[in-house]
């Protein structure tokens, strides 16, 4: 694991369940992430524009704009943003739909917090690599 990638890593948590979001936010903060919270898809868009998070933990089921709809909007704002979808109601169809769109992963509640931490770091690494590849790859394809 590349622990150095963690410093300054910005995570946006999007979930309508306040207790779940607050608890997760605390756990991520104590591990050194900069955490932002949004309780709905609309707020997630605002926060993404304002704070430019690296990784988003996005709940699938929310009133109003759901996770899948918010996903498209967030990717429009920042194509390199990495999104980990979260669901309390696993369905293969939705999972594959969102993976095809380029979600970093699709994970199910209840969460294993350690597993999530590794995933956030891996997602961040992928973001850095994608940004670098795009910056250095002008006029060249990848090897």
């Amino acid at each position, binding site marked *: 694991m590349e622990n150095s990638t963690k410093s300054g890593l910005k995570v946006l948590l999007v979930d309508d369940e306040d207790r779940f979001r607050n608890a997760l936010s605390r756990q991520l903060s104590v591990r050194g992430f900069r955490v932002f919270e949004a309780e709905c898809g609309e707020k997630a868009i605002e926060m993404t524009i304002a704070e430019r998070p690296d990784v988003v933990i996005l709940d699938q089921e929310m009133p109003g704009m759901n996770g899948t709809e918010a996903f498209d909007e967030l990717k429009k704002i920042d194509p390199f943003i990495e999104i980990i979808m979260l669901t309390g*109601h696993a369905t293969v*169809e939705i999972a594959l739909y969102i993976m095809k769109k380029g979600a970093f992963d699709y994970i199910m509640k209840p969460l294993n917090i350690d597993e999530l931490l590794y995933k956030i770091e891996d997602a961040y690494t992928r973001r850095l690599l994608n940004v670098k590849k795009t910056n250095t790859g002008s006029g060249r394809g990848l*090897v």
Partner: protein
Amino acid sequence: MGRIGNWFRKKTSGGGENRDIEVEYLRLNFKARYHSFKLLISANNKSLENMADIERALQGHDVFGMGFIKSRVTAISVSVFSMITHLKTITGGKYPGLEPAFFKIEQVIAEILNPKKPAADPRLVIAFKDVEPGMAYLVGEKMDHAAEVKNSLGLTVPEGFAITSTAYELFMKENRLQSEIERVIQSAGPDSQGPFDILSSRIRTLIMDARIPEPLEQAVRAAWQNLENAKGGSVRLAMRSSAMGEDSSENSFAGQYRSELNVSIDGVFDAYREVVASKYSVKAISYKLNRGVRDEDIAMCVGCMVMVDAVAGGVVYTRNPVDAADTSVYINAALGLPKSVVDGQDTCDLFVVSRAVDYEVIPARIFGDDPLDFVMVSQKEPAMTIRSDIREKKFKVACLDTEGVRREEVPQDMQTEPALSEDKIRELFELAVMIENHYGCPQDIEWALDRDGRLFILQCRPLKQMPIKDMAGNAPLDDAPPPLVQDGLTASPGAGCGEVFQVMKRADILQFPKGAVLVVEQALPAWASLINRASAVVTEQGSFAGHLANVAREFHVPALFAVKDAMKLLTPGETVTVDADGSSVYAGRIESLLRNKPRERNPMEGSPVFETLESVSRHIVPLHLLNPDSPEFAPESCTTYHDITRFIHEKSVGEMFQFGKEHDFQERSSKQLYFHVPMKWWILNLDDGFKEEVQGKYVKIEQIDSIPMLAFWKGFTAKPWDGPPPLDGKGFAAVMFQSTVQPALNTGMPSKYADRNYFMLSRNYCSLNSRLGYHFSTMEALVGDNAAENYVSFQFKGGAADFERKMKRVYFIGELLERYGFRVDIRQDNLTARLEGHDRESMVKRLQVLGYLTLHTRQLDMIMTNASRVIYYRDKMIKDIDALIAGATVH
């Protein structure tokens, strides 16, 4: 970061250092590939862990629900799809056949998980008189039977209507309840007893807060009005659950769902919500889980019957449920409403009626040859009451004037009066036999007697009788101590032993230890959720006609009911043996009683949930792609998810090795291991697997900094190999024969099969593809400080000897690996072993074991048919390995 920064500066300053730019560019690309490779390996690991979960579930030791299946299948699908994406990144899209293969499998699985439902009937409410035979899909089994008894047999069943499955689906859909409920269930975590009450109360709140759709409200009000018009006055209704699958012969769901009695029009919609919510009561969740019933298969229909203000009521069993040889009819009767019988709350009267018997003419020729020996019997025995247990009935359940019911005291002088007269017993007996004859199988019938002396049939369902083999009598007691208790009725046969655990309130349920003897005052349906964890049940009140007794019989748990003072006589914590057949409880464990205990069976086997997992697993778990050198090893041949993961894993490892060579990239090209001399081992440093930058074509073991690789190497080099075991003549001939048939096995020939061993490593990761002698093995390990992420996997195949010897060696290795804690799976001559979740020190030891075995099982196949040599080698290896992992020096 620093290096990348330098490269940016160089590039922008236009220094023209093309080689540096090229190298930096390759570094970045390698890093991106390595990152994808790492994610691919992690997804592979995750999918294998989930597959192992599925295999464990199919072994039938634990119960699981559809939530388990859906979450595992989703996790595996996501992992496999991720692997395809990562392989695409690594190879630049070299294997386009993988996605079609994946989606083909996914399609089949989706059809198993979401079977198409038949087109729905649009009616939300149906009057009983309009229910036709075979409408159970619309009104539920219970109301389908009630309507059939009314419409086809013409028996007296209260008027009413059913709120249909279409109505239920509308109610769930308009309130988006199904997905919300599944979300709550999944979030509650593993399927265990603990969180059921929180889960149940959260779901209940969702349902009780849900809105009744307007068309449903209108339909119910109109149906109610029709009943009142017909009666010429106001009515009260009994609202009974009539769920799909309830009251079927496989699953009785006895008492799992709720009935609301004496409901007024003001309370009808709350009562509807209550009945629907009872689908998720603690006992119903537990029952469904243990019986493997799929939640989505159960639409909750509700039967609404005009309330019978009964003076007596109860349950008739048309046969003895615990004795298939007994043809008598059993009538349980309470004062007031039948509720106290089915709830097992109070004691009730029992009348046993023998059937009318016709003896037929029996020609004696059947027995002998003498034509004169002709016996003719023409005798008719009338039905008669052969037993009347009139019990003290202190309480009864009665309707309140306004709405609802209450348990009230029976006046002293009435308490010991029979609940039924001889005439009514006879009438009820005849109705019961008529219903049994109609359905052609034993029936469990709920009845009520109103103030005008009319008998009503409220519901009927198939009665499950214990198969005779399950009722095998126990051996007579030889020198057993005198029983602690000798009393009670056999509610479910058999004998069970465990510690006494008294349950007095719901909170006690959570503390109930598996295997204990459940001792309670009343045989309430609420205790049903404990049945599958109890070794036996003893109650003070209740009859074998109650719901709890039904559930005990379904789960084959011995139960002894109506044991006076059981709570006083059986001390908590004391080990007792309950002999339900002999109506006795003994102190301690009485082996002679337990000897003939029916074999414990997995109640889920054959259930819809179990079968769903079995069907799904056939497209996930089996591995067909065993040989990477075969032309069949291709995306098009992948028919399971496991095939896909195997293919991807193999190809990804190859691609990572190719990178350095293909791009003439020295620092990410493999290096030859230098261990005293140059070895036939090549090493690729993926990331931080070397202590320092290594120049040239060799790397020394001291320069390596990979925890798993060094552990493996320690085992590999702990003890020098003695060379091939001395061959017996047959073994040698076997190898020679195979070598001539398969020239590639001959190491002397220039062949791609010659010894070659590739390590890929980083500090915490290592993979090895090895061909030593005639066998081929792969090993992969992740070892770090996070025990949850740690794993070792090992695969072994091949050998030069014939199939029998190869198999024997595979089993030999498998046995040794199991001894050291690996989970081993053997298919043909292909062995896979896995171990995960242990701490670093423990993983390091296991890797040493693998290193040792990789070297020392070489060519052992040659001696595998010689039993004494096999024992010699096994003992020697165990001794060496024990010394090795104990940290001692091996000599």
